[in-house]
């Protein structure tokens, strides 16, 4: 299992578009992806769950990736938060 933290840079937080990109990547993987904000933990494959996390710009999230392709998926998610989730 890989665990790391990401900062939400998207203006407006994890709204529909960044959440969709994240869920899309998580769903393509063979690993489980879990996102947590404080005590609240959600399945990274469910867009509604990711949006209900209510992550705002500047929030730090803990991401857990567990499975066969965890290294690849973790790298892709980090990149998403660095680049595309800025929108």
């Amino acid at each position, binding site marked *: 299992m890989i665990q790391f933290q990401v900062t939400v840079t998207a203006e407006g937080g994890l709204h*529909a578009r960044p959440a969709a990109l994240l869920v899309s990547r998580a769903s393509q993987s063979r690993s489980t992806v879990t996102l947590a904000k404080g005590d609240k933990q959600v399945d990274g494959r469910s*867009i*509604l769950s990711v949006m209900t996390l209510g992550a705002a710009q500047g929030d730090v999230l803990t991401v857990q990736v567990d499975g066969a392709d965890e290294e690849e998926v973790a790298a892709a998610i980090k990149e998403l938060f660095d680049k595309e989730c800025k929108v």
Partner: protein
Amino acid sequence: MLRSLFSRKKKQQEVTILAPLTGVVVPLSEVPDPVFAQQVVGDGVAIDPIEGVLVSPVDGKVTHLFPTHHAIALTSDSGLEILMHIGIDTVKLKGKGFTPFVAVGDQVKAGDKLIEFQLETIRQAGCATVTPVVITNGDVVAEKQVVASPNVHAGQEPLMNVVVKGGTA
């Protein structure tokens, strides 16, 4: 009787999703945002509204209301998760022009008013007004059919008919 036996065996349920807006029905593929057009968010259809009132398309519960009130997600009593995103890129309006009438956790009936919005404010911000209505948990959907009519009336006409898979099917 055979039909009822059949449906009981499958435990499927037919659900009508009413039009949440009055306007023109637009295929998702024509929505100017790739995450909706390519169905990354989910499968469904869009409506380009001519009136700024969003009503509930189903009986259900408000699962998520965006802090900026430009989008709302409901979970229907039948188990469908439905996301309605008013306009494209409207997150940048930061709530301006959107007035919510419900809160997270509220039970709603089909036709209940959810959000009022100003079409003019959205247009002036340079955003498209077309509003995707998508099912975000497509794994529970067995079949989906969008109405054939080009125009729909909010809360009065169906937008989609969906067959929801049973728990054991």
